[in-house]
Every structure is written in structure tokens, then in C-alpha cells.
């Protein structure tokens, strides 16, 4: 997993509430039993005027030249709600998105981000709106999202603090494989399991 410490990049505003994972990647775009090849389907319903022909919709924010190379999305409340499909995160990551800033995220989506080296940043709605305005206005703004310091520096140089739980932060900064970490405590899992099957024998098949 790619480590996340700090990125400096263009941010694109996508200021709608409840952007669900069907919007992020429609089910019909999940064509292979794979985590790859999904970015072409990212936001397909919004991004293309003609989905089959892949004809771009010039009005969609990520199709606008000034947002080319964006790595940061700024979005409305409840980003990533709906289906648990991790394909949404795989598609975003493959497209190049490393950070999403929003007032809130769905639990499964947020967790899927952490598993794949994407940083979800939660800020108050009014702060998100300030950042979105800066991303919309004039030339595309460059933002720095620093996970080590837990700060966002906006194009005017203003610093916005955010907080990510220690656990998530460490996972992102180390880029470690969670399965490998957990397997290191296999003895504890075994001990727990033995005890559980003794006290709750019905729980074992």
C-alpha cells in the first residue's frame, strides 16, 4: 500500500451532498474480477455525455482543463454513501485521487479509503465550503494536505487543522499491510477463540 505523508496538488470541487458509490463507479463499470482498470468508469454517469462512446461531458468538473492532474476532491456531506463496493476507492485511487475533504463520509467508504492509502479528511461544513470556493475561483488552486502535521494549507496560505484517529493515521503513514500486522498476533486470536468456544460452544460450527 502506498504510504501517505503529505501531498501538494490541485483540488477539484464536487460540492454535492450524498455522493454515493453508484455515482463514483456505476455497477456496470465493474467489468472484471480485479481491482484495476476501473478509473475509466469513475463518475461515468456525470463524466460522460455518452457513456458507451466515452464522450466527455465538458461541464463536469474533472473534465475541465484547469483541474487536470487533480489529486484532491472537495465534496459535500456523506461522501461515499450507499453500496460497500471498494471499486469506488480503487477507481478514485487509479485516477490519481489521494485525498477527499468533506464534512462527513460513510463508514464503509472511509474504511475502504484507509485500506488503500487514500486520506479522508473530515472538516466542518463551513470550512469545506471555504476550501471549495478557493478551488472554484480563478486558476486552479494548489493545496497541501499534510497528514504528519494534520493540516491543510490552502492557496492563500491559510492553515486549516484536521484530526484523523491515531490508528488510521499510523496505517496511512506506514503503508503497512493490515493482514500481516494482524497475523503477528495469531496467538492472541487463537487464545480468544479457544476461550470463546468454551464459554459459547454454540458459536462454533
Amino acid at each position: 500500500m502506498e504510504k501517505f505523508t503529505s501531498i501538494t496538488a490541485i483540488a477539484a470541487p464536487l460540492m454535492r451532498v450524498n455522493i454515493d458509490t453508484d455515482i463514483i463507479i456505476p455497477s456496470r463499470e465493474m467489468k472484471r474480477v480485479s481491482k484495476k482498470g476501473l478509473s475509466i468508469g469513475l463518475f461515468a454517469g456525470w463524466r460522460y455525455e455518452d457513456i458507451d462512446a466515452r464522450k466527455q461531458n465538458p461541464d463536469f468538473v474533472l473534465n475541465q482543463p484547469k483541474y487536470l492532474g487533480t489529486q484532491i476532491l472537495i465534496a459535500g456531506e456523506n461522501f461515499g454513501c450507499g453500496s460497500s463496493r471498494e471499486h469506488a476507492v480503487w477507481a478514485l485511487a487509479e485516477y490519481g485521487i489521494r485525498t477527499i475533504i468533506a464534512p462527513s463520509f460513510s463508514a464503509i467508504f472511509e474504511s475502504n479509503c484507509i485500506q488503500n492509502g487514500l486520506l479522508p479528511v473530515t472538516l466542518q461544513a463551513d470550512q469545506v465550503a471555504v476550501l471549495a470556493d478557493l478551488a472554484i475561483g480563478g486558476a486552479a488552486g494548489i493545496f497541501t494536505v499534510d497528514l504528519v502535521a494534520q493540516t491543510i494549507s490552502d492557496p492563500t496560505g491559510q492553515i486549516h487543522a484536521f484530526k484523523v484517529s491515531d490508528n488510521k493515521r499510523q496505517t496511512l503513514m506506514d503503508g503497512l499491510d493490515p493482514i500481516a500486522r494482524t497475523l503477528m498476533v495469531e496467538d492472541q486470536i487463537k487464545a480468544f477463540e479457544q476461550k470463546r468456544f468454551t464459554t459459547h460452544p454454540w458459536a462454533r460450527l
Partner: protein
Amino acid sequence: MAKTLFDKLWDAHVVTNLGGNNALLYIDRVFIHERTGSVALKSLEESGRQVRFPDHVFGTMDHIVDTHEGRGDTTLMPSGEDFIKAMREGCAWAGIKLFDINDKDQGIVHVISPEQGIVLPGLSLVCPDSHTCSQGAFGALAWGIGSTEAEHALATSTLRVAKPKQMRIAILGTLPAGITAKDVILHIIGELGAAGATGHAIEFCGPVVDAMDMEARMTLCNMGVELSAFTAVIAPDAKAISFLKGKPYAPKGDAWAEAQTYWQTLKSDNRAAFDRDIAIDVSRLKETVTWGTSPEHAIEISDTVPLTTNTQGCASSESIRKALDYIGLESGTPLAGVPITGAFIGSCTNGRLSDLRRAAAVLKGRHIAKGVKAICVPGSMAVKAAAEDEGLDRIFKDAGFEWRLPGCSMCFYAGGESFDDQERVISTTNRNFENRQGPKTRTHLASPATVAASAIKGKIASFRDIGADTPKDAIPAARTVEVVN
């Protein structure tokens, strides 16, 4: 210290604390399906790892399977067969029990898990599917995860989880005749908003929940995720226990007795504290239907589509305008009477026997309006067989409905079968998102009775509008069947 039901479930599964509010939780059961489980199994195999406890893992084919009679692996979804084959191969490789396409017990994961007694009160169960919260209706710690976390659960029998906050939703009063759990949960989402339970686990309780049967409770918990909740739970009672008794994977003999003793402790203590406490009286609730593109866009059927100057739930006027643009309705339009050309009954929300009975009670002796395409997809082979035993299939077919084989079907569009471009559909499913049921398809979520009545009228309508008895009173008498031990 007084504990909530969720605290008790959580504490019983902590292998070790990981600092802060994080813990390594023991996972008793993992359920996977072909859409997101296949990739988890493939990735696990590629990394050289094993499924740690295959006897505690189950698989089903539900998401993209064909639902027409005589089906095989071919599916209308382009390349869908690859997912089906990968799932079958993956389950064989790992030694996982798979409810394959034409297995007599196949069906939608959240329908068959309780039918099989795989979910039990007090167990932890995860599935790479957001509607896993449905199974919390049995007092299980059940929640939806992504594919990578599924891989983690398969490889280690554990997950690293941050404990959510807790929210109690007490549903008070008495549910009016004909009004169902679907109306209740749509109403709650309309009140609290689609982000109304972000960061929280919900416990549903109160007299209305106590009075609900298990299928209704599953409908309620099913849409907990549409409030953005971590999951939902209901304390297991005699109904939950009797539902599970004798099911294939439920404990037997002494183990059953022991389990029952433990399950009776699974309830929130009197003085347990919740981070949020909500009470909703539903005594005057009417049929509830969505008008827009989020489940929070839920109103009573007799209401009008909101004005863009209104801010309903968490929606801004801008988001209302965008939703209205997509759904093709004007502000102020009465919802009842809006013409529909599609009707769908099924899904993990409303694809169970009691749902089909309620719809059949409305459809009996009637026919759907000309130009309406109406489809019923039972949630499982068992639901289908039970419905056919009661003659419900005849009622659906005589009314002009297609009667299909189990699967998630047109709850979402996977690139194969769909409703038409901009077609307006009334559906018993859980998501009215843009393009969810087809390209630019306009979805209105409602209860089975409301979908049935709307199909008959060719427009959004209540069962009251067609002179049907209240569906609750018109449940067909179950045919006497011989009990085989």
C-alpha cells in the same frame, strides 16, 4: 456499569484493544457474494494466504445472476459470468459452503443467512455488502465492509474496528393498519437525513419494534445504512429465537439451550447511556414514498414534492433542485398520481414472504395498468417455494407481474437488464440513486403494498385508492403443510 446491547456485543468480541476506541474484533461468520467476494478470494489466493476458518464462511450467488427460468451461469451483465465462475472456483479453493445459482437454498445473502440460521444473536458477522446491517435484527453484531476488509476477516477471523457512537431510536405508538416497516424506515430517513446516523450504531426499540415480526425488523435494520449508520441492532426476543429454532446451521440440543440462556442477556441495561436518543411516534404515519434521488427524499404519499426553497432533512435548496431535475418532477406536484411505467418487488429490503403476501393481497383479482412492466423477484428459493405453496405466484402472474428466480436483480443496474432511459419506476428496493436501476431511470422507493397498488393504477397510488383491504388483514391463510421432522 450499565451497558447497551451494542456494548455487550462489542465487548464479547474484543481480542485485544488497539488504542483509542479501536479494537481487534473476533469475527464469527463471514458471508460473501460473487460481486465483491470473488475479488476478495482472488486477492487472498494471489497473496499466498488461506481462509483461516472455512467452516465459518459462506458464499452465495445473488448480485448479478440471471433471474429468468432455466438460468445458468450466463448473465445479462457483460462479463458477469467471470464473477460467477471466479466465485465458484474461489469457494472450492477455500473449502467454503456456496449456495450456488440453482441450489434449493440460493438467494440474497441477507435473506438466506437467517433462513439457514447462519446469523444468530450474539454472533459477529461481516459481509462485503452494505446491507449486512439487516441481520442486526437478530441481535447480531453484523455490518457491511469492503473487499479488502473481507480479505482480512477471511485470513485472520478478525477485523480492526473503531467503536462507533451509539444512537437509540425508539419507535412509539401503534402502527396504523396497512402501514409497514418500509414506511417507518423511509419516514425515519426523511426525518433524520441520509447522514443522520453517521458514526453511530443504531439500536431500534419501542412498542412498534416489539410488535413487528422478524421480517419487518429486517426491513427496518436493512435501511440503517441509508442513514449512514455503522450498523443497526434490535434486542433478540422470543420471536427472534423461535424464528431461528431448527434452522440448518442453528445450534441443536444442549447447545441450543445454552445459547438461549445467553441470548436472553442481550439487551440494553436500563440505565445504559446512548450518545443520541431519538423517539419517533408513528401512530399517524401514512404510506411513505421517495420523490428524489436520496432515501432522505421521503414524504407521505399524500404530500407534494417539496419546493426548492424548502430545506428538508439535510438537503439544501440546490440539492433539491438537482434531484428534481433528475427525477423529472416540478416542485409542488402531488406525489400520488405521478405516472409510472415500471414496478419492482423484491430485494434484501422487501423480498421476503410477508412482503410478497402484502403485495399479493393488493393484486388479488386485479391487473396492472396497460404499459406497466412489473416484476417480482422473491428473495430466495425458499421464499419462492413458500409463496408458490400459498398460490401467490398465480396472483402475481394473473395480475400481469413477471415471476422470477431469486437474486438482487433490478435493485441495481449491472449493465445488463434495466428499466429504460428516464423510465419512472416504483420499487420496494433501498436506493433511489441516480442511474441505480438503469441509465437515467427514475426510482421511487415504497412498500410492497404501495408498489402493487401503483402498478395497478399506472401511477403512484395507495392500496386505499383501489379499494383493496388493508394488506395486513388480507394475508392469505397459509396452506396446511405436513411437518416433516
